[in-house]
């Protein structure tokens, strides 16, 4: 196990560096610069700006400086939000994204596993059809369509929840973003649970459990769920990636000051330190979480050896 973790870390660290290099390369290869806008600025001022931000140095010096920042996990100051360091911005916006993301994922797990298990236990019944149709709907409706529809119904018609802005967590304002974000995972998890459970319910050990006289409930909860949920566990990795794209959209729809919203702003502003900082942060989190998922997988399924 230890050697597995070490081997994985050996791949993970270069991967993070590749992501950051790619991002940096894309920013630098693109025509123009962060200070170029509609208005043309005088040559002297441009030279001053280039001097100030070290843009007149050779590219490898700049690259080295950027990488130095990344290695120390100190990404410098934002170009757009003056006087704020990238780390401050991340520290401020992360709790917003994390609160929404984690609650959405938990909600999706609970509802998804429930729907999926019911569908599998009552295969080919109307429960099965209803929950699977619902799941397909969840996969097919883009979240930026679902979000505004929820706002239209629950905020602008029924006045139950505020339509936008961040009111802290937990609060009424967080309900619609969480619902919007969790719909997609709910659907995926329901489908995965159903598939996993159907396969497990047909296996020999479940027959053994039944034939030794266990109650249906014990068979399902103690025996079937453990095996049936394996696909859901391995979905956690991709789910994190979905979560990222999802939070970007949800934060835009509901005007939440989260990481995704800052990332889009930074990309539009060509705010290089902020882009690099957020990308590095996301890459590190994603890859470490994937590692954790793999380790958890090994514990849950003792047949898997690394």
């Amino acid at each position, binding site marked *: 196990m230890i050697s597995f973790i070490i081997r994985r870390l050996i*791949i993970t660290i270069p*991967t993070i560096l*590749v*992501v950051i290099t790619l*991002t940096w390369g*894309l*920013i630098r*290869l*693109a*025509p123009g610069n962060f200070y170029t806008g509609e208005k043309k600025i005088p040559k002297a001022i441009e030279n001053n700006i280039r001097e100030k931000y070290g843009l007149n140095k050779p590219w490898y010096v700049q690259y080295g400086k950027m990488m130095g920042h990344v290695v120390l996990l100190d990404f410098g100051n934002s170009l757009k939000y003056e006087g704020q360091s990238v780390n401050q911005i991340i520290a401020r916006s992360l709790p917003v994204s994390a609160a929404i993301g984690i609650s959405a994922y938990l909600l999706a797990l609970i509802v998804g596993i429930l729907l999926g298990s019911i*569908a599998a236990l009552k*295969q*080919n*019944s*109307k429960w*099965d*059809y209803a929950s*699977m*149709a619902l799941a*397909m*709907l969840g*996969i*097919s*409706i*883009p979240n*930026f*369509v679902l979000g*505004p*529809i929820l706002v*239209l119904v629950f905020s*602008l018609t029924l006045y139950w929840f505020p339509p936008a802005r961040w009111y802290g967590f937990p609060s009424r304002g967080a309900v619609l973003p969480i619902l919007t974000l969790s719909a997609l995972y709910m659907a*995926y998890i329901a*489908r995965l649970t*159903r*598939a996993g459970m*159907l396969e497990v*319910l*047909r296996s*020999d050990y*479940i*027959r053994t459990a039944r034939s030794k006289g266990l109650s249906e409930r014990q068979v399902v909860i103690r025996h079937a769920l453990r095996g049936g949920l394996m*696909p859901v566990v391995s*979905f956690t990795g991709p789910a994190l*990636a979905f979560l*990222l*794209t999802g939070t*970007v*959209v949800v934060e*835009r*729809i509901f005007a939440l000051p989260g990481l995704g919203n800052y*990332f*889009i702003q930074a*990309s*539009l502003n*060509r705010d290089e330190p902020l882009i690099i900082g957020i*990308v590095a942060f*996301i*890459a590190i989190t*994603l*890859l470490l979480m994937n590692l954790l998922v793999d380790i958890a997988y090994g514990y849950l399924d003792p047949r898997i050896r690394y």
Partner: protein
Amino acid sequence: MKDDRPTIPGEVDRVDKPEPGLTPDPAPSYREGDVIHTAPEFVIADLDVLAAERGDVVEGSSLWRDAWRRLLKNKLAVFGMIVVTLVAIASIVGPAIIKRTTGYAPDTIPSDAKLIKSYPPFRAPDGSFSWLHPLGTDNQGRDMLARVLQGGQISLMVGIIATIVSLLIGVAYGAVAGYLGGRIDNLMMRFVDILYSLPYIILVIVLLAMFRRNTPMGQLVLLFVALGSVSWLTMARIVRGQVLSLKNQEFVLAARATGVSTLRIIFRHIVPNTLGPVIVYATLTIPTIMLTEAFLSFLGFGVQPPLASWGTLATDGIQNIGIFPWQMVFPGLTMALTLFSLNFLGDGLRDALDPQMRKL
């Protein structure tokens, strides 16, 4: 608990016919009760029965004909196929027909200043019922139906072209890796593993934001490249797996023995045999890419005006959701319906062509 009986190969168990009183299976991808999937002998038995029922002489049946027959049995897949076809036809010919009948092209802004405002569906400017704008108009008085149909053209085009890009890269990469095997395969698939773990959507956003084109066509091409080049990974894995299982079969040996070149063996002899899973996965890639395109358009990095996709139309409508909900709801729901149908079609194809592949 009839479904929990262990399946005995060869035992003919007609589960493929829906039970009376129940609607047919809406989630065909997981019809695990189907003996068809587990007992190969049954497929033959089933075909004999079918042929006998029709009174035909039992004749040889190709994989494709079998698959087609299985697909037609799946009501939801047929529904998906019909909807997708209708949406595609309507998107292609619809705007022209509307132009002919009402004079509104998708980008026609009425010359009368009084008409430059958003009307609800089926309403004439004076509030009475009218067939002129069945889906209403947008803020500039443009016909929503024409715009939604033209948006369909762009959305479907992005979905299909980017899928073709990913198909070409994925199939070539996977086939070469699988056929060559050994160290090269190991290296190539390691590379795919690394790409898999990248937060690619983040990179796509950076790419699109940095290289934003001012011409709509340029942006569209950038979008094809960006979407196609990040979605070939799964395709490469699938094709490689197929090739690995095919390359030691007799027909490949025969080709090699008669002196066919490696490239020709890969692309003329092996790749055509992987088409089943490739078609299935491609069908499922189209909705994913359309969704990603819509997501990017929502963020402002996708299709640029004057072109409009369902994603951009819905995004434009979000601003006015409280006052003119039809501006968002119609493109949004049309898109959802199309994706829904494409997903069902893809699932149905998977069941029909490749009963083994039952993952997501």
